[in-house]
């Protein structure tokens, strides 16, 4: 996998990684609730915490690293069999995961967020107290590993500095060279410290027939003159210090030569020189690590992970484009002569068209992520909801590999959370009620995704009690959404739950909120140019179906002309095109309804709606569009054809205009506005109601 958008900023990369780690660890924790004994899951949780701590500390997420350290320690104990994995431990670790998410967030904010940070710290301590209780570890928490712990601790040793220099005698372990230590480099480092005289000791070299070429049997005596400190010399040997023989003596005029070292690198503890136990606790590598925290800028740019092979495909296309470009340049410089030249030009044009469409598809795919990442979040939600409501809920997912635009996926999270909450809170019954109704005690929530053409279909289905029509009707009447006794088709009745301010919950609960919800859900889905439909069977459950376009950036459109302006109608919404003859036009004046296979469909004259001030063409067309079962006809002057539409958003001055969802640039450089299908259908329905009321 390689990163697109994370660029060269490891901190941004860490944020992405931390989110993934937290998600992965959370999944493992949820699995652990079903299988507390699984070593593999415990290892996964431990490793997730370990990496999070290590990388967090690396990039300045000190609070995160310190907090995660406790969780890591807890799972380390479980891993080593010192403590059992219990449901309590998993539950408190799950809340710890939320806390870690908050810590990742907080670290990115400006330092002004001190108050919030203080609140978070208090919450963290409460969680840690629970954690220590769950693991049966009443002792004071061990100090967290952060940068701070690596500093200090630099006691100078005994003979800090020798005036004249040092006499150094050393012998490396026999396997030092095989393990990557190069004695020449060590000697060079000593030479860097001062004027050095090096004498090799060959006494310990074994006879040739038992000599292993890779083994190191030489010893060295170095007389180093200069002001080097003991630490500086020991620093040279930091990586081999514990396994080698090293003797250091200050150089004094009268000092006798150090006695030759015994050849026994295998028994370093017997030598009177420093043994590992004598060494100060500080390891030299800590000295290496202790400089002040230099934090990279904490940009919170969005990023997408892209499998490398997709980038390869993109690269191939770009390569082809470069080739075509050079063909075109060659043709342009040679001049387009005669039919052969024109043929060449046409072939290039065709090639560019093919490449443009392939590039578009490949580039769009770069933004696609499997919906599994979105669905993964809901496992935790359902787990929590089941605990809160005391219901037994089984979550089944399907089609997790379905891919969807990353932005779309993120914007879908909140609406789907709301729909799941609704199902768990209102739809699914408590176990005793289910058993009384002859159903299994456990409720079932099914979350499925599939791709259908240019759309992704997401369904949230429960096998609960279904939507109570009578309550919906009563509520709608009470809120004045419908007239008392008004006749409504079943679908229309159910659609009422998406009206602003509508809520059937008899009492406001924690889960379902305060009646803000379904209308917001609907608006969010429509903002993604999607639709939401609901079906429900009493006693059998409800199904919410979301239809979401695969991408936000490009749509297939139908290009039409109204007066002198050109407009794009999203092709996905177009059902059919019919002709509006002059007689029909005149006959339907004042009614604006057309008979379409035994059904009356209202239509809007866009020429009048947009006030073009032009006369209608002799052969006007009606484009019939539909959303969510409602149909409306749009009268246009001319249908130009289908058009690949790259959507540009409207300027902030024009954003409030309801009939248009955006604009696009046409091949001739002109601008076409994109019609907002949902709004126009609503407008058509209103017109129909007005007419109905009037006559």
């Amino acid at each position, binding site marked *: 996998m390689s990163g697109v958008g994370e660029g060269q900023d*490891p901190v941004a990369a860490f944020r992405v*990684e931390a989110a993934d780690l937290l998600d992965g660890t959370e999944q493992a924790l949820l699995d652990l609730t079903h299988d507390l004994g699984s070593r593999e899951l415990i290892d996964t949780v431990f*490793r997730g915490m370990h990496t999070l701590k290590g990388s967090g500390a690396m990039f300045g997420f000190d609070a995160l690293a310190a907090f995660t350290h406790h969780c890591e320690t807890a799972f380390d104990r479980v891993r080593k069999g010192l403590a059992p994995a219990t449901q309590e431990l998993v539950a408190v670790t799950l809340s710890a995961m939320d806390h870690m998410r908050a810590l990742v967030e907080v670290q990115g904010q400006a330092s002004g967020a001190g108050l919030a940070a203080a609140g978070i710290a208090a919450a963290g301590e409460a969680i840690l107290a629970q954690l220590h209780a769950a693991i049966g570890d009443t002792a004071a928490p061990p100090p967290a590993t952060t940068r701070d712990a*690596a500093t200090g601790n630099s006691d100078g040793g005994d003979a800090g500095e020798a005036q004249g220099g040092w006499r150094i005698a050393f012998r490396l372990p026999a396997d030092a060279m095989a393990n990557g230590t190069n004695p020449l480099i060590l000697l*060079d480092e000593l030479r860097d410290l001062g004027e050095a005289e090096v004498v090799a000791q060959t006494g310990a070299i074994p006879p040739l027939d038992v000599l292993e070429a890779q083994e190191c049997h030489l010893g060295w005596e170095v007389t180093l003159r200069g002001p080097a400190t003991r630490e500086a010399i020991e620093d040279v040997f930091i*990586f081999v210090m514990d396994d080698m023989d090293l003797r250091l003596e200050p150089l004094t005029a009268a000092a006798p030569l150090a006695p030759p070292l015994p050849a026994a690198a295998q028994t370093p503890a017997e030598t009177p020189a420093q043994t590992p136990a004598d060494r100060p606790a500080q390891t030299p590598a800590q000295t290496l690590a202790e*400089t002040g925290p230099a934090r990279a800028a904490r940009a919170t740019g969005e990023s997408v992970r892209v499998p490398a092979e997709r980038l390869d495909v993109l690269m191939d296309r770009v390569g082809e484009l470069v080739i075509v470009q050079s063909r075109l340049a060659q043709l342009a410089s040679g001049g387009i002569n005669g039919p052969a030249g024109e043929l060449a030009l046409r072939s290039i044009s065709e090639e560019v068209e093919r490449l443009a469409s392939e590039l578009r598809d490949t580039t769009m795919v770069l933004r696609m992520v499997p919906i599994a990442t979105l669905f993964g979040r809901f496992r935790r939600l359902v787990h929590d909801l089941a605990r809160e409501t005391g219901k037994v809920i089984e979550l089944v997912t399907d089609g997790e590999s379905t891919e969807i635009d990353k932005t779309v996926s993120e914007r879908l999270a909140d609406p789907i959370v709301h729909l799941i909450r609704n199902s768990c809170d209102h739809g699914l019954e408590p176990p005793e009620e289910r058993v009384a109704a002859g159903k299994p005690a456990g409720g079932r929530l099914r979350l499925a995704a599939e791709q259908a053409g240019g759309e992704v279909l997401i369904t949230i289905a429960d096998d609960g009690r279904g939507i109570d029509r009578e309550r919906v009707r009563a509520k709608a009447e009470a809120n004045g959404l419908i007239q008392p006794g008004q006749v409504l088709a079943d679908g229309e009745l159910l659609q009422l739950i998406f009206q602003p301010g509508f809520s059937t919950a008899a009492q406001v609960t924690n889960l379902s909120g305060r009646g803000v919800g379904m209308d917001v859900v609907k608006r969010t889905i429509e903002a993604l140019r999607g639709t939401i439909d609901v079906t429900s069977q009493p006693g059998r459950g409800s199904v919410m179906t979301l239809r979401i376009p695969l991408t936000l950036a490009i749509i297939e459109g139908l290009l039409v002309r109204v007066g002198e302006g050109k407009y794009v109608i999203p092709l996905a919404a177009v059902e059919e095109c019919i002709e509006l003859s002059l007689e029909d036009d005149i006959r339907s004046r004042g009614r604006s309804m057309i008979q379409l296979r035994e059904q009356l469909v209202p239509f809007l004259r866009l020429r009048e709606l947009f006030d073009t001030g032009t006369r209608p063409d002799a052969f006007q067309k009606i484009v019939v569009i539909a959303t969510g079962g409602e149909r409306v006809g749009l009268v246009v002057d001319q249908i130009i054809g289908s058009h690949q539409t790259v959507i540009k958003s409207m300027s902030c001055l024009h954003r409030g205009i309801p009939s248009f969802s955006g604009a696009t640039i046409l091949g001739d450089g002109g601008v076409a506005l994109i019609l907002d299908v949902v709004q126009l259908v609503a407008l058509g329905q209103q017109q129909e109601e007005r007419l109905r009321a009037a006559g």
Partner: protein
Amino acid sequence: MSTILTVDDSSSIRMAIRIALSGAGHTVQEAGDGVQGLASAGNAKFDLIITDLNMPNMNGLEMIREIRKLPVQAGTPIIFLTTESDEGLKQQARAAGATGWLVKPFEPENLLRVVRKVLGQ
């Protein structure tokens, strides 16, 4: 300059290492766990290998032991990343054949110091 293999399951750590080392003119190859690391080490001679210890699929210790059996990497220095809390692991890593270590969290200049030290540049 040198060709260096970095093995870590944390992509952000790998990125930090890559940026620091390529900034100093080294060529860096990345691997995401011990299995990938061992495969890379079997394919090409590296001047230095930097590895994490705690990784999925094959941990760093096992990988170091296996790399030490590869003739192509004879004498290749291997630096492992460690936290102070894994003092026991440190002993095991050296016994497995590691050349040196770097304590996490580390600053880029310390990484470069250790690399210079081991490569003798």
